[in-house]
């Protein structure tokens, strides 16, 4: 299907003639978009594209639900209930819409973090990063506005909390936002504005920014891998035509993602919570949806009560602003992992903190967090991650030459250090790379589980403070011990696997060899 179009479709099969037809009239041809490098045919490079696929699914399911939904306070819940009960496949639609929303937010976050760790925000892609951050904010806005629309107890109370938070921002911003989302403040105005934002304004803004981002992508192409182009095999550097290879890859990923969403929706269909009424709402603890829970958890710390709320919001805003203008903060020229020690560590701390805050928020609904506990948990997490990062950099990365070709996409993988030994043949490198992927994958999993379990230590302390040595506290403590063990296991596994430069450890534990042929 990558036929020659220079003859403009005079020869060739049906496909060529069709393309020639559109090329003559519209300029649409096989070469419109620049081809993709072979190394980018890899799911990590397509997280953003999957977020767009999720957005399309949202659009389709959303439009179908719009046929039945009425955005007024009296009819919002009834019409949503109608969709659940009386519309063909209504429950399926609603469930898919909700889970795909969660997936879109998660994919956007993963896309951002991958970009952060691989330093795509360096020159010349600074503006692309800022555009991407705005799209991320819009995605969060989708979640916020959409959540209110069913008018259930949980959603209305959560949105009230969110609107209250908005009012605590500095007056010019707060007034503008308040006007935008609440208008006169009456329920009917609020829900209508949220509906308009969710269905018209935010999708239009997202599509415009998406077009801009795609244009910038066309200008620059896919970013080189962080470890540098020299370490790639010739095959990996080769270019892949957009049509049909890259198109099919996109369709493949989209199909897998779509089927995963649908099968999950069937396995775990959702139920509609009760309708909002002040009486019923008084029995529910109002919490935002999980993607805002980390912000909410910060606000629940004791020191930020009352007038301190502004300070808390200021802190959260600082984080968001810092992420947005990251290209101008992170001015280092190098994209290598080894050189970007501080930023990599900072990024890891950020991810760990968000994770810990979210889980913590799920476990402590409605409770104020004492200051000491906050310092322990948050500071402890940061300290742990920093120590781990420092240890990894010192023990593992120090051995490797600090050229531009070293350093990879995650703190655990440096198996591509094989690239430093020029005598290694390419076949070995590719199998080592597969080994590297497995190593990093298992390591990240173990580390994640370990960090999660270690948070049990802090919750154990909290339980002990609350109610003395109880079964719950012991369980949490046991969790934390398991977490420490997991981290230790992960570290030793990592060290063993990575110690291929000198082979020192390997030679000592030859019994655990899995059959790798290592040529010294």
């Amino acid at each position, binding site marked *: 299907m990558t036929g020659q179009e220079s003859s403009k479709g005079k020869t060739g099969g049906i496909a060529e003639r069709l393309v020639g037809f559109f090329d003559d009239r519209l300029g649409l041809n096989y070469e419109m978009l620049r081809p993709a490098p072979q190394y980018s045919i890899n799911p990590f490079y397509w997280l953003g594209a999957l977020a767009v696929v999720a957005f399309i699914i949202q659009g389709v399911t959303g439009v179908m639900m719009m046929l039945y939904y009425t955005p007024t306070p009296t009819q919002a819940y009834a019409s949503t209930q109608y969709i659940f009960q009386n519309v063909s496949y209504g429950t*399926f639609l609603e469930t898919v819409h909700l889970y795909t929303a969660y997936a879109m937010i998660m994919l956007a976050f993963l896309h951002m973090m991958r970009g952060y760790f691989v330093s795509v925000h360096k020159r010349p892609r600074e503006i692309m990063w800022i555009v991407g951050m705005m799209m991320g904010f819009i995605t969060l806005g989708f979640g916020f506005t959409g959540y209110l629309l069913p008018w259930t107890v949980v959603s209305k109370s959560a949105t009230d909390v969110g609107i209250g938070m908005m009012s605590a921002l500095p007056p010019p911003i707060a007034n503008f936002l308040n006007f935008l989302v609440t208008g006169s403040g009456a329920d009917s105005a609020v829900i209508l504005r949220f509906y308009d934002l969710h269905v018209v304004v935010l999708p239009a803004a997202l599509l415009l920014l998406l077009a801009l981002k795609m244009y910038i992508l066309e200008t620059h192409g896919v970013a080189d891998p962080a470890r540098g182009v020299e370490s790639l095999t010739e095959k990996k550097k080769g270019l892949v035509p957009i049509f049909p*290879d890259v198109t099919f890859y996109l*369709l493949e990923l989209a*199909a897998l993602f779509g*089927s995963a969403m649908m099968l999950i929706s069937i396995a775990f269909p959702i139920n509609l919570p009760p309708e909002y009424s002040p009486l019923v709402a008084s029995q529910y603890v109002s919490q935002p949806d999980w993607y805002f829970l980390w912000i909410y958890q910060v606000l629940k710390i004791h020191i930020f009560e009352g007038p301190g709320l502004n300070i808390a919001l200021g802190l959260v805003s600082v984080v968001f602003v810092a992420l947005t203008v990251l290209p101008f903060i992170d001015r280092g020229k190098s994209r290598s992992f080894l050189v970007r020690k501080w930023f990599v560590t900072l990024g890891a701390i950020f991810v760990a903190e968000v994770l810990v805050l979210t889980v913590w928020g799920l476990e402590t609904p409605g409770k104020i967090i004492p200051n000491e506990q906050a310092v322990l948990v948050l500071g402890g997490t940061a300290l742990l991650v920093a120590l781990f990062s420092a240890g990894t950099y010192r023990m593992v990365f120090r051995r490797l030459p600090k050229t531009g070709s070293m350093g990879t996409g995650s703190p655990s993988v440096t198996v591509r250090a094989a690239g430093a030994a020029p005598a290694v043949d390419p076949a070995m490198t590719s*199998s080592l790379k597969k080994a590297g992927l497995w190593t990093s994958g298992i390591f990240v999993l173990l580390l994640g589980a370990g960090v999660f379990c270690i948070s049990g230590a802090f919750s154990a302390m909290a339980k002990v403070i609350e109610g003395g040595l109880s079964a719950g506290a012991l369980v949490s403590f046991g969790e934390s011990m398991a977490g420490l063990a997991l981290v230790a296991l992960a570290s030793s596994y990592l060290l063993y696997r990575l110690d291929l430069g000198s082979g020192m450890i390997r030679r000592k534990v030859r019994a655990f060899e899995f059959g790798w042929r290592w040529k010294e």
Partner: protein
Amino acid sequence: MKRRGSIPWSATIEEIGERLIALLLVVEAISVVLLWTLNSYTSQGQTAFALYLGVDFISFAMMSYLYRNLENEEPISRLLVIAGCLFIAACFFVGFALPS
């Protein structure tokens, strides 16, 4: 994966690749036909619908994977192919086993 003794296996996949694509196309066609003829609106019907749509998507994804790698002579992961086929079979089985 170029492991010891593993090279003959990927060659087998290469050989049957086209037949596998044809088979997957048939599976996809069957699932589309079922999707359009499924008329029940019950919750069982929803489950079956989602399962067949999932089969449609996954069989296409497998076809695309095989096609791309066959065209570019890249190695095809046996594990993925087998896992995918098993998954499709499981979805079909559950879809038919559901009382409608």
